[in-house]
């Protein structure tokens, strides 16, 4: 064998191009977590009393919980007293428009390829940008408001739409749901809120861009999307973080609510800093994402492209409560070097004639571990429920691992549930075939991987599909000689 393939084992560092830090003056809470910190955060955000109480209740419950250890991931325990729970880029006054935003901030987002100021001319995507703990600006607000669409930061929503927040916050992911959701409920600092009124099709992609900048900071954002009857929204989140040697914690909660005939399409391109090639540093990404198809004929579709984070623990789920509701989960998870991902979905069929579809594509390289963990549950009353799941794994190199843990629980005899899974590697013959046509090995791997992931990539909104495809190639750079 010549160098082309024998160097499969030879993993070379791939460059994380979002690893820069920005010199932003930040205002932070002291390290550590106690009731005073929570009061500090709540006061900082000028929150109503009920929300503070809610946070404290979550905190007290969190104290009784232990960190879950069932996922197929290994990492040193997080010292929750060594995290800064609030960090906000300092701005003298709250900006009224993007023109007033700190230019260093805008430059940060421009470097990330998200130009807040030029949004209008460029892509027609409304963006809410969140740095560390707070939202720094939302574009397109006025245009959306004309349609009755609310799209703003969570902090703003608490002030301006308390009735909606009170009604829906924690309604899908209760504060007691799990260790990280309880923690998030206690200390969440910002995030995006979105409400689409009855009968409105949101005319543009809504997007939140998350960035961790400050050192030792955890990011605990909270996203809430409510789609009222017969409405439609497509939403995208993107994430990056600077390269730092220590691990940083990201524990977000996302809740989606779809009423009768409503549809929510939620796409994620997750590219948190994965750590260096020796596994040093990187983000712990412990996220709870769940949507409820509350109404009949409603639909929630999750699409995720997961390339970053040192450790990922994430199961975007659908509770299919409304009759004829539909849940979808499309995922590409790529792990390289020392990354570990334990990700998948839960499809909980409660209503009649509910349907779900799971397409998961895992790609492992280097010495990484990539697990799919999923649950399809058909309850006793979910007559005629249908599920189809496809989980495929692709291995690059012989020191990585691919694992599938599907749980299927069926309590109704009219259900039809199908699950298929395959594991394979990139064939040497496939690479040679490409080589013979003049394509070098690296490009050949990218072509094959993109083909493997195509079914999921096709689900991404156009504007981001190209970006995501490049991200796949970058993540796997150097994984095959």
């Amino acid at each position, binding site marked *: 064998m010549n160098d082309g393939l024998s160097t499969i084992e030879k993993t070379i560092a791939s460059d994380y191009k979002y690893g820069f830090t920005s010199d932003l003056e930040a205002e932070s809470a002291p390290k550590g977590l106690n009731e005073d910190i929570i009061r500090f955060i709540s006061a900082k955000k000028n929150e109503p009393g009920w929300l503070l109480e809610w946070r404290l209740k979550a905190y007290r419950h969190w104290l009784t919980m232990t960190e879950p250890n069932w996922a197929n991931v290994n990492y040193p325990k997080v010292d929750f007293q060594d995290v800064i729970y609030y960090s906000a880029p300092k701005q003298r006054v709250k900006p009224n428009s993007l023109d007033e935003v700190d230019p260093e901030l805008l430059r940060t987002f421009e470097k990330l390829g998200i130009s807040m100021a030029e949004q209008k001319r460029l892509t027609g995507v409304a963006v809410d940008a969140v740095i560390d703990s707070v939202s720094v600006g939302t574009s397109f607000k006025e245009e959306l408001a004309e349609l009755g669409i609310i799209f703003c930061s969570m902090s703003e929503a608490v002030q301006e739409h308390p009735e909606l927040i009170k009604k829906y916050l924690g309604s899908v992911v209760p504060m007691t749901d799990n260790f990280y959701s309880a923690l998030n409920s206690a200390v969440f600092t910002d995030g995006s809120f979105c409400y689409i009124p009855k009968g409105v099709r949101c005319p543009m992609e809504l997007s939140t861009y998350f960035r961790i900048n400050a050192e030792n900071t955890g990011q605990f954002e909270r996203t809430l999307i409510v789609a009222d009857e017969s409405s439609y929204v497509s939403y995208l989140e993107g994430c990056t973080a600077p390269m730092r040697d220590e691990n940083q914690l990201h524990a977000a909660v996302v809740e989606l609510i779809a009423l009768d005939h409503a549809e929510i399409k939620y796409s994620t391109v997750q590219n948190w800093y994965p750590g260096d090639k020796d596994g040093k540093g990187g983000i712990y990404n412990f996220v709870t994402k769940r949507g409820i198809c509350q109404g009949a004929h409603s639909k929630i579709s999750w699409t995720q492209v997961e390339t970053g984070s040192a450790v990922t623990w994430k199961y975007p789920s659908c509770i299919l409560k409304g009759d004829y509701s539909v849940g979808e989960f499309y995922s590409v998870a790529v792990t390289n070097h020392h990354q570990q991902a334990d990700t998948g979905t839960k499809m909980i069929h409660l209503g009649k004639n509910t349907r779900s579809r799971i397409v998961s594509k895992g790609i492992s390289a280097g010495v990484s571990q990539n697990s799919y963990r999923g649950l399809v549950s058909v309850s006793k009353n979910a007559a005629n429920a249908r599920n189809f799941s496809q989980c495929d794994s692709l291995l690059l190199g012989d020191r990585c691992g691919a694992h599938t843990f599907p749980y299927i629980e*069926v309590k109704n005899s009219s259900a*039809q*549930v199908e699950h298929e899974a395959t594991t394979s590697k990139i064939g040497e013959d496939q690479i040679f075939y490409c080589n013979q046509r003049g394509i070098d090995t690296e490009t050949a791997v990218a072509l094959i991987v993109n083909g493997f992931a195509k079914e999921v990539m096709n689900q991404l909104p156009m504007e981001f599909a190209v970006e995501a495809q490049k991200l796949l190639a970058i993540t796997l750079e150097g994984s095959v000689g």
Partner: protein
Amino acid sequence: MSTVTTIKEKMDLLAAKADQLAPVRQAALKAFNNFGLPAPKHEEWKYTRIGNVFNLPLQWAPDQVDAVTAEDLKPFLLPGHEEANVLVFVNGVYASALSVIRSASIECMSLEAAMDSGYAELVAANLGHSGKYLTDGINALSTASLRGGVFLTVKRSKDAEHPLFVYNITDARQVNMLSQPRVLLHLAENAGLQMMETYGTIGSQESFTNQVMEVVVEKDARFEYYKIQNDAAHASQVSTTHIRQTGKSFVHAVTISLNGAIVRNNLNLVMEAEYCDSHMYGLYCMQGKSHIDNHTIVDNVMPHCESNEFYKGIMGDASTGVFNGKIFVRQDAQKTNAFQSNKNVLISDDASVNTKPQLEIFADDVKCSHGCTIGRLDEDGIFYLRSRGIPDQVAKSLLLHSFAMDILEQIKPEPLRNYVDRLVSERLAYEME
């Protein structure tokens, strides 16, 4: 006194016994005290509440086996019995009077005796090997209770002239019985054995059989194994078959489960040599409130192995089914081909199935796939048959029978296949009533 307390006392006594098996028992007792009985949060026991069985006042089996006679055995006999090597366990204790070894190629002795024989090293290395894969109190309970167990070996380059029939009989006429049969089976190089095993509870009291059979299959050996579970509806069992393929060899295992209260099967295939070839088939066809749980582990340690796994279930009444199939492909096990499929039909609104196929893969040059389906009978198929004049119920049982056929065909000895086929057909006719 609670059952667990009684059991612990008995195990303490056994552990104190100064015989050849004492160290094995003592280690297992330590493990049992450490694990305790599996709670529902034990991942491998999530869907099977085995702890409930111990809420019964279970009786520790007596050493005497003469309460069960040849006459008592008759209802459980499998076809071909007269010509077979027969091994009978009464309440988990080997009953020599009811057993017969006809084949010169098979050597049979107690586990204690084996520890003093030329096989001592082999026994020491393999007795309790299943505990490496089954880390729970149930497996430890069996090993800590070692008593009345049997060591069998099929000699080098011999095909056993007669098949081996194993009957696990539990006498529950007077008391609720705890029965723990234990076998260590060895197939020497190039040996061949066909084995059938079944379970029978006499009497109307409840029973719990905690069986462990460990098998060592050496180079070029061939092991064919049929497990028929059609015990009483008030009898529960955990039946562990742990097979090590230490050389390039062939294993063909078929598990047929038709009745029982809680039936849990652990079938482990550890492929420790290159070019092993293994096939595992299962059919479960349950009624009433039966609970069937098939846990399988295929561990690919070495390269170039091939494994095939195919389980099918037909769930009627309020029965519950569990399938949990794990395939490991270790880092050195390149060129592994592992396939797994689990298909279920629910024919009652109260039946349910939980299935959890798992692939854990650490080698890259492998072909692995698993698939599973849960559903009901194909409406088009039923309609097609009905349009040819076949009544609805008959059409359904015909279709179910054809669904089961893939597995039934894997029973190679014809008399046994016909016997099982008849049991399955009766069951399906019942299910459709």
